[in-house]
């Protein structure tokens, strides 16, 4: 019997009349949205990837954001100066404090989808305008980050957020990022009207039908409250039996007075919520950064391959050797609506690109503390002042 394929000799040839090829993905989108293991790229390929993505982002924002261009001109750096990997260190960095004073945008006002505000922990709120593409890529980075938490990315999960939903989160970045996890997995929120409702969370957790892995996400101080509530209610919570995870985010913020060491917090939630120690993970993000960094099972906060993270000397802003402590800086090409080339208030370390104990390749960050005063930032402040001066002159 002749098969249909044999009967139609042209069956495996393109038929121009009814087939058309369209579109094409930017390599960054391919990486963020489609690549299965973003931490597989190594060596020269990783350096070339970073250089290519960040150089292109620098070129784009240099052209699209006039204030940033002027800032670069003051620093004496243009895209023509970024040719080799080491030139990435020359890209002018914006102190995050600048976002408290000036809104930097690289897109038309009509393209702004969300104005995002920081918590204002250190006085003043940063305002960062994001377009749809930046927000979608942020969500893509979260989805990629889930692969750092658990290699089974598409696992069925239920997320319990120790924070408000999107309506209540409004423009507050930390809460907003937590709230949009609802796009990825069914999510419940347990801060309503600024009140944390630990009893409701514990009740819903106990009632979770078999199947989904519970993920509890929130700031560390609310996990302290949650563990205390479980104890007060006499509940024996056993997250481990469902491979549940606790994901901390956002740090202690205004609750520094109650801050526990990581070890103490881990001990508290292991005891109070019955989670396996390997299933407690921290994450890192800030309103000025468009990627989210997740901690792996070996305790490393992995820097995704598109992100260029460095530690800088606090005075000269010179790049420091891998592992040396300094001010953390990031060049993040995921942001299209503002130049995400930032110098933060965080003091920490960036490791060399290396194979982690978890098997992933790349570098990772460790944050030690925050600088107490913005003014400590020497050259950053000078650049900041130069920009302010330029603004005055332009006005």
């Amino acid at each position, binding site marked *: 019997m002749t*098969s*249909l*394929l044999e009967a*139609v000799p*042209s*069956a*495996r*040839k*393109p*038929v121009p009349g*009814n*087939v*058309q*090829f*369209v*579109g*094409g*993905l*930017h390599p960054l*989108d*391919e990486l*963020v*949205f*489609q690549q299965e293991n973003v931490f597989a790229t190594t060596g020269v390929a990783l350096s070339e990837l970073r250089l290519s993505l960040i150089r292109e982002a620098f070129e784009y924002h240099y052209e699209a954001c006039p204030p940033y261009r002027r800032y670069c001109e003051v620093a004496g750096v243009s895209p023509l100066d970024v040719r080799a990997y080491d030139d990435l260190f020359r890209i002018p960095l914006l102190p995050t404090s600048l976002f408290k004073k000036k809104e930097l945008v690289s897109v038309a006002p009509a393209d702004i*989808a*969300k104005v995002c505000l920081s918590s204002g922990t250190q006085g003043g709120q940063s305002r960062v305008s994001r377009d*749809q593409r930046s*927000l*979608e*890529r942020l*969500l*893509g980075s979260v989805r990629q980050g889930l692969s750092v938490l658990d290699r089974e990315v*598409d*696992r*069925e999960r239920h997320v319990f957020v120790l924070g408000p*939903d*999107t*309506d209540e989160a409004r423009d507050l970045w930390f809460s907003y990022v937590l709230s*949009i996890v*609802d*796009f990825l997995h*069914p*999510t419940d929120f347990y801060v309503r009207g600024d009140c944390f409702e630990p009893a409701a969370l514990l009740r819903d957790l106990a009632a979770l039908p078999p199947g989904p892995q519970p993920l509890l996400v929130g700031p560390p101080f609310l996990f302290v409250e949650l563990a205390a509530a479980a104890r007060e209610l006499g509940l024996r919570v056993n997250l481990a039996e469902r491979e549940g995870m606790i994901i901390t985010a956002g740090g202690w913020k205004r609750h520094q007075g109650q801050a526990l060491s990581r070890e103490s917090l881990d001990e508290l939630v292991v005891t109070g919520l019955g989670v396996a120690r390997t299933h407690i993970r921290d994450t890192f993000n800030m309103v000025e950064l468009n990627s989210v960094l997740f901690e792996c099972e070996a305790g490393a906060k992995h820097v995704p391959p598109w992100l260029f993270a460095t530690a800088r000397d606090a005075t000269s802003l010179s790049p420091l050797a891998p592992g040396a402590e300094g001010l953390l800086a990031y060049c993040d090409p995921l942001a299209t609506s503002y130049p995400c080339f930032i110098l933060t208030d965080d003091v920490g370390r960036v490791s060399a690109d290396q194979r982690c104990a978890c098997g992933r390749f790349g570098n990772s960050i460790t944050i030690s503390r925050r600088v107490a005063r913005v003014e400590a930032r020497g050259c950053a402040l000078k650049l900041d002042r130069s920009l302010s001066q330029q603004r005055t002159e332009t006005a």
Partner: protein
Amino acid sequence: MTELHHLLRIVGSRGQRIAAVLQRASSEPAPRPLVVIAPAFEHSIRNSFVIARYLLAQGFDVLRYDACNHVGLSDGSILDFTLDSALTDLCDVVRFARRDLGASCVSLVATSLAGRVALRAASQLAGELACIGSIACVVDVRGTVGAAAALDCVGEWLDGRVRDPERTWKVVKNHVKYAFCRDAIASGWHTLASTLKDSVAAKAIPFFDVHGEHDPWVETADVLALAASSPSVEVVVLRDAVHELNAATSRLALCHLVQNVVAHAQGRKLEIAEIHELRWAELVAFNKRERVWERTPVEEWELYARGVAGREARGDGPTLAIKEQDRA
């Protein structure tokens, strides 16, 4: 713009209850074209809310449903999922739309494995469908299921390595019984040739597929073979795209899909640039609403047991008591 929605359960021809969401583009009572959206494997009603929004914006009513013996709110466990049961559900829902909802014409949108089911449904629904739009249509069931599960389960049944239909295998997230493989073979679903045969049989109904060039589960050559099988098939290949749509690929895919469905169902030429793309705030709001629907206990979804599968076929069914909600 006011949007109307209705959460309902349709009693299918096998007696199982199919959970469905009907969204109406307008409160005007006039008959409008309707699109039925069939769920991809392991997808539920919520997964197609973005497609639905694109279609609603073009004046279609949209009826989405959860397959029986599947994930979602319809009856049955996914353990018992078969392509035959998916076909029955799809035909039941299309007939419900035709006969009970008073749609002026019905089109079908089906993604992934549901696209394969839609191709066969087309020959059973001749005269009832204006067109079929698909994204990442599966054309070689054995190959795709094998790639997704990293296991040639159909081959295992074919060569007798597995004989127990109650035994299960894991597809992506869920386990399914080997009865799926047995029935796929018995009903001739499992080969590329069977798909091409269905395509030829369905030539009266325009079929459109958006295929990802780098789809690891569906070979581009197979999709081109589908295109060559019938002049009623049109294919758009999205460069660099994979099987699952994402933020970077969905816009273009949906624009082409909607453009095609509008052309066939409304006889209207629509430029890609004219198509309303969802803004971030809309996505957030609609996602939230879908979550609410998803969590509404299914017992509260209105049971609607009339007219399915021709038992009480008629076009003058009562208008559903639809709920009104302001569009975000």
